[in-house]
């Protein structure tokens, strides 16, 4: 392991809670509905993060707790029942209903597991109920997906069939690309979790080889292990290097030769390197500061340093699972400073002192930093854009080069004409 410097920090934070992940999860599974049991704050958070207005009726909503629901839990359960009955009557196409716990529902100890169990009996054969917590007292941003996937594992049937299971939400087009490449490698039985339809859950067992596409799935990984699945240890498929290692690790697990992998992906790599060149030109030697939010920070830092030659000042992450991130950390340059957790004020002090060229941060901080003359990239875009795989490496770099390029254009003193 490289000599990476680990730090922990606590204090006031500036991050989203796990509820935010509903924004991409509901798109992944169009037959599912996500019902948050929470407050007006929860409803306001999701609509503010997602820009919900474009939908006539979105496939997520909030059962907002009111005074009378807090007075007695029995009544709250009854009320929730009523809301769910109405919802199912209104949206008969829903196949899976996720009951999502929030900060207030956790604090008043609303037992969503029992609620889900009862509802599963009542709506047997029509709708399945699953519960997990997206609360901000337990989860940060992407951890919401971890909770949702973990909650689905008990519903997955067992099978000893050998298969490759890609775990973590991917953009559909990226998923298709990956599957094609794996098939070319000779792996034919490939499934994804979460699936595109909530009812088409993959079967799992001791011959399931799990390849993670996202770094924030600690709990899901633990439960998949309990079901006998083998976890393929690999860096994450961001950038050329990460994706190559990722394919190699999968191939090794299926006893496919390295040579075969290189044969198939080297044209992709050559073309990606070419595409990356213009972005590298801009990013090279620039100082990067990553604030914690998505848990993608370590993989991004590795990509931006190793392939785009940026200098890493600090790599923040809301939560660090060293075991899961082992392969990534191995690829980081020596003396990389990783900070787990956050004290947003102290961290912003360090941002200002270190005079970075680019800061990756949340939407609440981006414009204030820009106003101070510091270029930023909002981290939420990483979870909404197709950034995985060799073919997307240049697009991923583009997310970071664009703010710098724009800054150059806007501060340029001469009018460029052609």
């Amino acid at each position, binding site marked *: 392991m490289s000599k990476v410097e680990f730090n922990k920090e606590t*204090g*006031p*934070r*500036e*991050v*989203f*809670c*796990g509820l*935010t992940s509903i924004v991409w999860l509901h798109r992944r599974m169009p037959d599912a509905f996500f019902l948050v049991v*929470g*407050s*007006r*704050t929860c*409803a*306001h*958070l999701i*609509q*503010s*993060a997602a820009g*919900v*207005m*474009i939908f*006539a*009726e*979105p496939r*997520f*909503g*909030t*059962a*907002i*707790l*009111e*005074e009378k*629901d*807090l007075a007695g839990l029995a009544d*709250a359960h009854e*009320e*929730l029942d*009523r*809301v769910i009955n109405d*919802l199912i009557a209104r949206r008969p196409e829903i196949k899976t209903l996720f009951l999502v716990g929030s*900060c*207030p529902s956790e*604090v*008043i100890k609303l037992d969503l597991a029992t609620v889900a169990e009862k509802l599963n009996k009542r709506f047997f054969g029509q709708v399945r109920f699953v519960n997990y917590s997206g*609360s*901000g*007292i*337990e989860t*940060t941003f992407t951890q919401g997906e971890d909770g949702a996937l973990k909650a689905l594992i008990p519903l997955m049937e067992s099978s000893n069939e050998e298969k490759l299971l890609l775990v973590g939400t991917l953009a559909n087009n990226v998923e298709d690309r990956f599957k094609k490449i794996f098939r070319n490698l000779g792996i034919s039985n490939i499934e994804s979790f979460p699936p595109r339809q909530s009812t088409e859950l993959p079967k799992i067992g001791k011959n399931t080889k799990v390849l993670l596409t996202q770094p924030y799935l600690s709990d899901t990984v633990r439960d998949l292990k309990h079901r006998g699945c083998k976890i393929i240890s690999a860096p994450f498929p961001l950038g050329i290097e990460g994706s190559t290692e990722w394919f190699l690790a999968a191939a090794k697990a299926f006893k496919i030769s390295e040579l075969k992998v290189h044969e198939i992906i080297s044209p992709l790599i050559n073309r990606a390197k070419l595409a990356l060149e213009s972005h590298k030109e801009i990013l090279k030697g620039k100082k990067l500061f990553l604030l914690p939010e998505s848990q993608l920070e370590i993989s991004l830092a590795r990509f931006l340093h190793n392939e785009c030659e940026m200098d890493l000042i600090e790599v923040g992450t809301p939560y660090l699972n060293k075991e899961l991130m082992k392969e990534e950390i191995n690829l980081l340059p020596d003396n990389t400073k990783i900070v787990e957790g956050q004290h947003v*004020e102290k961290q912003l002090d360090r941002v200002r002192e270190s005079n970075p060229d680019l800061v990756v941060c*949340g*939407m*609440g*901080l*981006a*414009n*204030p930093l*820009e*106003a101070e003359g510091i270029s930023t990239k909002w981290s939420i875009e990483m979870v909404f854009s197709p950034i995985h795989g060799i073919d997307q490496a240049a697009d991923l770099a583009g997310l970071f080069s664009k703010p710098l390029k724009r800054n150059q254009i806007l501060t340029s003193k001469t009018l460029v004409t052609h």
Partner: protein
Amino acid sequence: MELTLWTYEGPPHVGAMRIASSMKDIHYVLHAPQGDTYADLLFTMIERRGQRPPVTYTTFQARDLGGDTAELVKKNIKEAVERFKPKTLLVGESCTAELIQDQPGALAKGMGFDMPIVNLELPAYSKKENWGASETFYQLTRTLLKEKVSYSEKISPLRWKEFGRRPKVNILGPSLLGFRCRDDVIEIQRILSEQGVDTNVVAPLGASPDDIERLIDAEINICLYPEIAEASCEWLKRNFGMEYTNTIPIGIKNTIEFINEVHKKLDLPLTNKKELENKSKLPWYSKSVDSNYLTGKRVFIFGDGTHAIAAAKIAKEELGFEVVGLGTYSREMARQVRATAKDLNLEALITNNYLEVEDAMKKASPELVLGTQMERHSSKRLGIPCSVISTPMHVQDVPARYSPQMGWEGANVIFDDWVHPLMMGLEEHLIDMFKHDFEFVDGHQSHLGHTATKTEDFVNSEDKESKNIKEGIIWTESGRAELTKVPFFVRGKVKTNTEKYAILRGIPEISDETLYDAKAYFS
């Protein structure tokens, strides 16, 4: 428990953030978990603010709950005070912290600071954003001025005469995330100044705690946004005798009435009464011949209380529209909106459910919708032009250009914003003339750029309501053909009316003649 897919207003602590972020030298310690920090983006992204909201979130986690969350609150308060050195500290809690009852306000008061501390108790499970903003502004005003109550004389609105200076007023209510507040303030200050009235303090927008303490240097208060400022104005009236204005200067008539009210309260002679009629282009533009086609345009209005009421008055009295629907999501303003609706022979729609609003909109078949950004989306789906008149805020509601809603320039902006989504008079006339030419495409909708409802879809549509009405009724070839000749924006109404008429008369088949019979019957 209430199922909510989307909400017009945020929770009450977001209202408190609006007050804190609008002001200077204030800091708000909010006992809240990490996810609540999303609210910062409302200010930094939607308002494009270059500063973070002055808010510290205590960021308690599940593991803190067994231990001492009160200590965590105190630690955060101490750090925030040392770092930001506010002149006044707001302390409160969001929905989750309300449940664990640490009483952060009381904790802060016990920490020995010498700055004023405002303890905000905003019930998150029964109240909403605007209430939270109003309560915060009221508590802040009260905290900073309560010591002056006992020795202050009643403030006479006429005392400027004794002082030998121009009368001074406060402009209360403008805040961040309020609709066009930034520009309304400039417009109103300009109008007051022209009338010989000086502005003492604008608050909360741009004010410091020192400014709040100076509120009583003015003679009267201008209550510009009652949703935010009425509680404070009422308190200032009760305790200092300060009068406040009731007229909201949106539209020409209300602006003139507002100026009259200010003059009357201050006993300041109004010398330029005649000029007022010509300050805005709205009256002439509305009178000019091209605007003839605006007469009786069906308009559906939904928004916050203040803007919805003002829009109804402008629509009816200044543009000659017919108001076919009026509603608000502000429960606090329900009484006033109901009264306005009653004057228009309508029943007001008071709801926080946008799907109910969309349904009401469909039923009213308007030709123009004046609503929030959500109604803009709903009307886009329905193929109806729309202009946005109210919060909740969207990045488009913070335009780069000067674009008030109030005063003379506000009336100009309103004329353009409401009329441009419609077809111009001459344009509509020409389309009417040429619509039977073969080059003319059915469903042509000028610059509106949507392809809402093809006639065929309309006739064949099987939505629930028309199914009931249509029971046993058939549209004949000639009936369908005639229906396609009806302009798209009234086609729905004509179709429903004709079917109603057919049922009423027991006519099983609708022909072109039935259409004309129904037209005559309903006119």
